[in-house]
């Protein structure tokens, strides 16, 4: 279709808008504005192609839930989220290149120090009243099947129980299976004991020389805890269109699927933190949710939270929140549940008809017809 006809369609709408009598009432003028939002018919074919492509994500991505808590989370008054950015440095890692995989394990001489720091930060977050805690990628000291690993894990679990936390414990490269795994730890409702579920990274950061094993099942995984329902995208997983589109469809205002409240993005990057943070901002807008990004000390931003496309910090008048900086490594964000829901509603309502149509929850679109 030549571009000229598209221009003609636009001008038709404009002319009709001026011809139509406007009604001053708040309700009717809102409806009139919605009615005016009509797409040129020549856009419909391409939109339908895009819509079908996006919708097929459902065929290969069936979200899978792990339930830690069967409590309904609607009654939560406020969310307290701690982000922990460790000082882990590439010099503290050793490369293992085996069977075509390339992973990075913590050097033995640094393990003890890093483990102690890990626990110290977790205590700080717990004492600060955090409910949800997220570390940066590779922050979890690599387990090597030693006695110390079990003891360390038990200490983490003990703190999770003591402070009633839901923990995304950074991640580590598995030394024998070559996955990049993030332990998700929370108290399980069945026996009241803390349970750890390993969450696998879905994409190798090849440019950063990470070649990891990928789980055969690449479905969106999410976790229901007493503090809310969350997904974890480890670092560049936040660039994966299958994950993003599936989450957008799931979280859309009109979707009847269970909504995901938060997305945690632990990352370890020396130079791409800004780009990853931008991806988190986009995700928070497109899925109308709260996205928590945590990087290591090597690049900034180290801690950043986005809600419905807005950066959440005390200097942003658009979001009421409280940010407590316990140190360079540990921050706690407090946001009221009502404020959280207000912003989610606001962004959902602002989506254009094209957006609503493309992600598949609306059956149809309004198109211009020549009068």
């Amino acid at each position: 279709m030549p571009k000229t006809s598209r221009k003609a369609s636009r001008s038709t709408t404009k002319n009709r808008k001026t011809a139509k009598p406007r009604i001053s009432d708040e309700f009717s003028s809102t409806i009139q504005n919605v009615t005016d939002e009509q797409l040129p018919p020549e856009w419909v074919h391409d939109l339908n192609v895009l819509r079908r492509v996006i919708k097929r994500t459902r065929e290969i991505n069936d979200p899978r839930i792990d339930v830690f808590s069967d409590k309904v989370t609607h009654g939560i008054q406020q969310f307290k989220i701690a982000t922990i950015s460790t000082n882990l440095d590439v010099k503290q890692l050793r490369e293992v290149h085996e069977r075509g995989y390339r992973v990075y394990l913590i050097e033995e001489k640094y393990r003890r120090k890093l483990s102690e720091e890990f626990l110290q930060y977790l205590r700080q977050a717990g004492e600060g009243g955090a409910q949800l805690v997220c570390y940066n990628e590779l922050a979890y000291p690599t387990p090597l099947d030693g006695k110390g690993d079990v003891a360390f894990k038990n200490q983490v679990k003990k703190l999770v129980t003591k402070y009633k936390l839901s923990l995304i414990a950074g991640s580590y490269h598995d030394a024998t299976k070559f996955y990049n795994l993030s332990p998700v730890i929370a108290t399980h409702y069945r026996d009241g004991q803390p349970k750890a579920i390993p969450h696998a990274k879905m994409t190798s950061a090849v440019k950063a020389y990470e070649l990891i094993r990928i789980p055969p099942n690449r479905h969106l995984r999410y976790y229901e805890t007493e503090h809310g329902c969350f997904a974890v995208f480890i670092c560049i997983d936040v660039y994966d269109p299958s994950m993003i589109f599936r989450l957008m469809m799931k979280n859309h205002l009109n979707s009847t699927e269970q909504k995901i409240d938060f997305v945690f993005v632990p990352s370890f990057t020396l130079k791409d933190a800004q780009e990853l943070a931008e991806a988190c901002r986009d995700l928070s807008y497109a899925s109308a949710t709260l996205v928590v990004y945590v990087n290591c000390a090597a690049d900034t931003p180290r801690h950043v939270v986005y809600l419905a496309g807005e950066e959440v910090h005390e200097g942003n008048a658009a979001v009421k929140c409280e940010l407590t900086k316990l140190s360079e490594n540990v921050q706690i964000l407090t946001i009221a549940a009502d404020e959280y829901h207000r912003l989610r509603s606001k962004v959902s309502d602002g989506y254009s008809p094209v957006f609503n149509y493309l992600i598949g929850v609306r059956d149809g679109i309004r198109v211009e017809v020549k009068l």
Partner: protein
Amino acid sequence: MAYSFPVFRKGIIFRTDRLVSSEEAKRIAELIVKDPWRYQSAFETALARNNGSIDWETDRIDKDNQERDSDDLQLVGENYVLHFPLIGFRYNGFTVEARNSLTVCRHEKKSKIWTRLSCARFGEARTRLTAAEVSKFFEFASANVDHILDGLAVAYFQHAKDAGVAVPKADGYGFQLRAFNSTTNNSRLLFNRLQRGLGVSEALDDDRFRPELIDYFQITLGEKLSVAKIKDRIKNGNLDVFGYKSTEHEAIFTARISATETDICGFGYDDDHQLNNSLFSHAATKDLLKEYAQNF
């Protein structure tokens, strides 16, 4: 008989400035889930009061309701959406399926009550209707719907009060959606052409399309109009005509917007013989309702 399965939906968006918190909305919604029959009773009372004897179809509808998903309370987006059990009745030759819904909103969003009346058949088993019968169904629905919504609103405000939430009684903005199917090949061609550049006024001059377009505008406007008068109203901007396109259907809709109410009426092609959720009239009205309602 070219038409089938007219569907009539109307909702009231409460004009209130009282903001409901998340916790209050949850309290109200939970109370409603415990006592949904209050709304069915309000519906039945309103309908019977306005029409006298109604032939309620309890057996078949009870079976449908048993087969329904038991998840009556849904948290959709940031709001609680409650769909009440299906109600079936016969009146004046029409077999009607009805469902009431309620959205309990929080924060700046406004709560809404909806009712849907779908014509399943006319007479014993006829699903194909004349234009006059479609008009008659919409007239019946229109004559009753405000009484039904008044009854539902009373039930809702009582539930809010019972939940300890002081929501002052408020008037509402009416939002009405009507649609019916055309079953002819000419209409299928018409919708296809309208979305590919044929003007509505040009279609009114085409012998293949004129009869159904005249029926459509007469049903929409509730009055008999000549082709010249229809063209005149479109030209003067008094009728807001727009196209609708989904993966299954193409259609034309007309919106009439006033300070107290909006009425949107459309027709599209669908020759299915069964009343179901994917029928044009059912699916498109639901789809547009969602789009408009989410703005309040």
